[in-house]
């Protein structure tokens, strides 16, 4: 029994019959107000208030834990809230930083300044009375070097990287690395050849995201291969872009491809040109270019959003061979519907390796395949264990 409940109980026994009668009389007089006026005893304070720097974080956070008031859920059972108070000196002044509902035993204060000492008190309220815990010990927040909760990520990244480095070194040593045929890539030659025969342009659209997106990088890698072909065949290439940094990189890529193929004179900066950063402004511009230039082949390789179908439908209407590639799941259905060939998801990343046969790219694909083989094994083992009711294994893959 809580101290509060014991004190309340003693109060009733001492009174006897006369005070009880007076009590009932006042009840009638003051109606509902009696209940609040009666409760003058504060709830018992929270115990064992502990404050510590939140582990595995980048600083700026202190965690508090405490044991519930004996009147929270048990005892008088009238606790309504816990109030967290904070001060920079032990003697105060303490300021309220938050209020938590009854039952709370933990709070993470994410408004701390690293290196500053703080003291905490946890107050408990029953709606009328409040009682405070003694202050916690001084504590300050700081950033940790490692987040041990993400150790599994480190291991997974390390294993994957190790596989990639191993296969790249094998490829560099001259080992033949096999990559299966990717449907659609054989059509690259056909598409550029068709444009050459028809005397029309080849369009290359590298998506609408910037260079910090992996799909854009993969798209530009494929652009290098397409540019080599257009340089060799003497076909005109046009690359409208919607990001300035992509324009700079695409120009470098095309220039290098023209140099490699022995036709540096065929290159000019106008091949790659900027339209606008705006998604639909870019789509309107590319659509206009398609209608006026009537390209024989169009490549969409990179990250696309809602403009994918607008572009692909216009390309289809001018009778171009269209080869798309993206890892945007929501846009793939549109490309599959409107284009002749579509590289789905990871095929986009494998495509440049397949086309260039470059050791680093080939080794990277093989390393990723090793990762997939490991994942298949994990899935097989994990599903069997889960079915047998052993759940610990799957917890290894929980991330934060």
């Amino acid at each position, binding site marked *: 029994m809580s101290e509060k409940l014991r004190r309340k109980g003693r109060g009733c026994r001492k009174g006897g019959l006369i005070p009880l009668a007076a009590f009932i009389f006042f009840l009638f007089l003051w109606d509902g107000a009696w209940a609040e006026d009666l409760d003058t005893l504060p709830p018992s304070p929270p115990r064992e208030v502990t404050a510590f720097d939140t582990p595995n974080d980048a600083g700026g956070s202190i965690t508090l834990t405490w044991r519930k008031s004996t009147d929270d859920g048990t005892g008088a059972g009238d606790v309504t809230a816990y109030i967290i108070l904070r001060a920079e000196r032990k003697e105060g002044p303490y300021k309220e930083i938050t209020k938590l509902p009854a039952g709370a035993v933990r709070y993470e204060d994410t408004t701390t300044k690293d290196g500053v000492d703080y003291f905490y008190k946890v107050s408990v309220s029953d709606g009328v009375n409040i009682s405070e815990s003694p202050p916690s010990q001084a504590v300050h927040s700081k950033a940790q070097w490692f987040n041990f909760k993400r150790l599994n990520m480190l291991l*997974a990244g390390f294993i994957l990287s190790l596989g990639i480095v191993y296969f790249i070194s094998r490829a560099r040593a001259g080992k033949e690395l*096999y990559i299966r045929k990717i449907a659609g890539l054989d059509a690259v030659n056909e598409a550029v050849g068709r444009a050459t025969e028809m005397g029309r342009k080849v369009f290359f659209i590298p998506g609408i995201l910037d260079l910090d997106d992996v799909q854009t990088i993969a798209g530009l890698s494929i652009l290098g291969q397409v540019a080599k072909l257009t340089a060799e065949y003497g076909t005109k290439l046009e690359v409208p872009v919607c990001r300035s940094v992509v324009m*700079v990189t695409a120009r470098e890529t095309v220039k290098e491809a023209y140099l490699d193929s022995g036709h540096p004179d065929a290159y000019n900066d106008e091949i790659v040109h900027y339209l606008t950063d*705006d998604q639909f402004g870019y789509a*309107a511009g590319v659509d206009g270019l398609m209608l006026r230039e009537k390209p024989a082949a169009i490549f969409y390789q990179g990250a696309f959003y809602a403009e994918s179908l607008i572009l692909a439908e216009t390309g289809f209407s001018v009778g171009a061979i269209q080869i798309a590639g993206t890892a945007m799941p929501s846009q793939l259905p549109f490309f599959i519907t409107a284009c002749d060939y579509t590289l789905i*998801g990871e095929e986009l990343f494998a495509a440049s390796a397949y086309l260039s046969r470059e050791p680093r790219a080939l080794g990277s694909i093989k390393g990723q395949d090793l*990762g997939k083989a490991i994942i*298949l094994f994990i899935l097989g083992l994990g599903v069997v264990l889960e079915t047998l009711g052993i759940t610990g294994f799957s917890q290894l893959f929980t991330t934060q």
Partner: protein
Amino acid sequence: MSTDIGVWIAAFLTLGILSFLYKDNPFYKVSESIFIGVSAAYWFVYMIYNVIEPNLLGNLQKGEWWYAVAGILGVMMLFRLIPKIGWLSRWAVAFMIGTGAGLNFIVYLQSNVMKQIRGTLAPLNSIGNIMMIVGVITGLIYFFFSAEHKGLLGGAAKVGIWFIMVSFGASFGYTVMARISLLIGRMHFLFSDWLGLLH
């Protein structure tokens, strides 16, 4: 009918862009050129006030001088305009690609690998779970590039691509509905804001 000149210009440009559905024409060309020009200028100004000013100038004013490194890399991009030192812009591009790839490596590893594995590890106790597990495993086999899709592997890959295509079909239908709502939005603008036929 609206008396606001801005609404009239917007209605003209909307119709100009929609005229593309008929064929390329001068109205479309005008609307397209205005759209591209205005949006390019808008993004230029947006970048200055929402990227360069708060992220670079704002932090430099606070004395966080290390942000100057980003400013220098940005200026290096402009060196392309001076052929003699144009090669320096490659450093900035290399930095951007490197950091982009490095940061995304962790993001993709977490969201596309670890969380997917965790989500797939379920007991074989329901049709839903069985379908999910078979779909993930065969889908993963489809994206295995080190072996020819023949025999058992080929069969599994074929099942995988069927799962992928079914999900694409569902995604297609869902997105078409979203696009129709965009069209309804423009039609509502024309018939309500411009012509005042709908209230």
